[in-house]
């Protein structure tokens, strides 16, 4: 016979009071936690950030950015060597070239650092594609506070009711066990143990990317690249025309330059919105980064779940049980009855 069933003496079980108090505290902590971490304002920002990065976080799109950078690099290198040589009549007179094409020469001097930085940034982003996809596969960030508040309210409610009306404990106990098991199971169901650490890695990787300073540096690079490409498009290529080459000959002799020229608008179409998304999400990233570390989140469910389920299961009945006193015919009312008291 279980210790929570009605015994032949006409008593119902009474839960261990201290266990219910602990369960109630855990429930209250779950309710309070999202407010303490200001999750209601921060997690929706995370949801927006994940959504705004979505168009860019595909293998094809990220590979496209790398291709864009390689295309610019090839065009710049070819301009600095073959084109400069052709315009110099077969030799590269750096001084004359710099004098005739100062904008390009200035850009060319800055390009290696820009290329390094942008390529490294894209490598970093591409390296975190899997982490991003893992985070994006989690339930919407907007819901996260409710994942704590709703079970917390239920746990708190059932614990308080059980404290005030112990005769309902038999069913309330199993509801609390079920809520605890639900909290334990939720991270497993949502694969949070795999995904949350990946989210943590992504947040760490983006720490140096999603800053005002970094975004402004990239905006500056964008201006320099636009100016440099303009110098190729509007000065070097016309210079080649002036030297007697038509468009087909330029494409044949200087394919990297022709390709950059032809694809520049596409490159702008590609890169500009990404810079916009980076810029727009600096504050959102910082809001999410100020939450507790992602890898801890599954434990925020599991640990309360273990405590609630464990205590609810173990709470059973106290040595103090409740005697059933007949009232108004068939109804009964529980009153304390000291079973084991001598």
């Amino acid at each position, binding site marked *: 016979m279980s210790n929570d069933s009605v015994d032949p003496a006409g008593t119902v079980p009474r839960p261990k009071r201290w266990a219910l108090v602990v369960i109630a505290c855990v429930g209250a902590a779950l309710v309070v936690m999202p407010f303490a971490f200001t999750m209601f304002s921060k997690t929706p920002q995370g949801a927006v950030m994940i959504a705004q990065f979505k168009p860019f976080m595909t293998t094809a799109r990220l590979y496209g950015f790398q291709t864009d950078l390689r295309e610019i690099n090839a065009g710049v290198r070819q301009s600095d060597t073959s084109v400069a040589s052709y315009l110099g009549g077969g030799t590269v007179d750096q001084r004359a070239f710099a004098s005739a094409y100062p*904008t390009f020469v200035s850009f060319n001097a800055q390009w290696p650092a820009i290329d390094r930085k942008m390529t490294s940034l894209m490598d970093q982003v591409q390296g975190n594609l899997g982490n991003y996809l893992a985070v994006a596969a989690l339930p919407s960030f907007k819901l996260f506070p409710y994942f704590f508040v709703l079970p917390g309210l239920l746990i708190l409610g059932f614990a308080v009711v059980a404290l005030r009306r112990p005769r309902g404990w038999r069913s309330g106990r199993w509801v609390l066990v079920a809520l605890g098991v639900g909290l334990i199971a939720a991270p497993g169901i949502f694969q949070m143990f795999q995904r949350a650490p990946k989210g943590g890695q992504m947040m760490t990787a983006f720490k140096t990317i999603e800053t005002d300073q970094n975004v402004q540096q990239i*905006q500056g690079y964008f*201006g320099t690249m*636009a100016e440099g*490409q*303009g110098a190729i*498009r509007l000065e070097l290529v016309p210079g080649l025309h002036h030297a007697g080459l038509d468009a087909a000959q330029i494409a044949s002799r200087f394919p990297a330059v022709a390709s950059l020229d032809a694809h520049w608008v596409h490159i*702008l179409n590609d890169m500009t919105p990404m810079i*916009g998304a980076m*810029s727009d999400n600096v504050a959102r990233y910082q809001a999410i980064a100020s939450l507790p570390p992602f890898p801890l989140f599954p434990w925020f469910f599991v640990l309360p779940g273990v405590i609630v389920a464990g205590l609810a299961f173990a709470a059973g009945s106290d040595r103090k049980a409740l005697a059933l006193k007949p009232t108004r015919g068939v109804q009964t009312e529980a009153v304390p009855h000291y079973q084991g008291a001598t």
Partner: protein
Amino acid sequence: MISRSRTAALLALASLSLIAAGVVPSPAGASGGKAKALVGTFKLDAGSCQGSSVTGTYFRMIFPHGTVANGKFFDNPDSLCSDKTYTLAIPGTQGGLVTGNYQPDPSPAFTAQGGAAANDIVQPQGFTAINFSIATNKKDPQTGTAVPPPSITVKNGKLTGQTEAWSAAWNKLYFNQGSPKPGGSHPGLTTPLTGTYDASSRAFVITWTSQVVGGPFNGFTGDWHLSGTFVPAK
């Protein structure tokens, strides 16, 4: 009786306040220090460069942390000026900026390559290989905020007003470039519209700056200089 007189006095006072604030044109127009709303078309002079001298209608873009006086300015390789920081404007099909009404983006607002198609106020101009242009829409396309049509008032030859709806389009993106910004704020280097107006020739010069809020040019500031001749609405 007393109550009616008091109401009439209050109404008169309110009317005077509105006239003084430039909300309602005064019967006397711009003369005598009264503000007058200029409703019509601010026909733009095309931008022009002669050496380092730039006249007419043009625009510059200032990098974040820059200043209007000293830049750093964004170089537009497509600029027709030797100083590539100036992007010149050519008047659009309606000749310039209309006050009291909107001059919205067409549909579609962009070409397949991302060039802006609006051409009422100014003709689309190349900006780093992609055309940009200007429109004024009832709902600002960048922020989604409802904005009033541009309004400009003259008082003693000085122009004031608002261009909240002034929206630049480029590369399939929108950048609000009005002053104040939608909602009425003046972030960063955003300055109120100011200018001069010659009542006899109707020649005007209008300037303002507007910081870009959000998007790839977040923190940049557009420096706008419009000049031309005002043509009142019939």
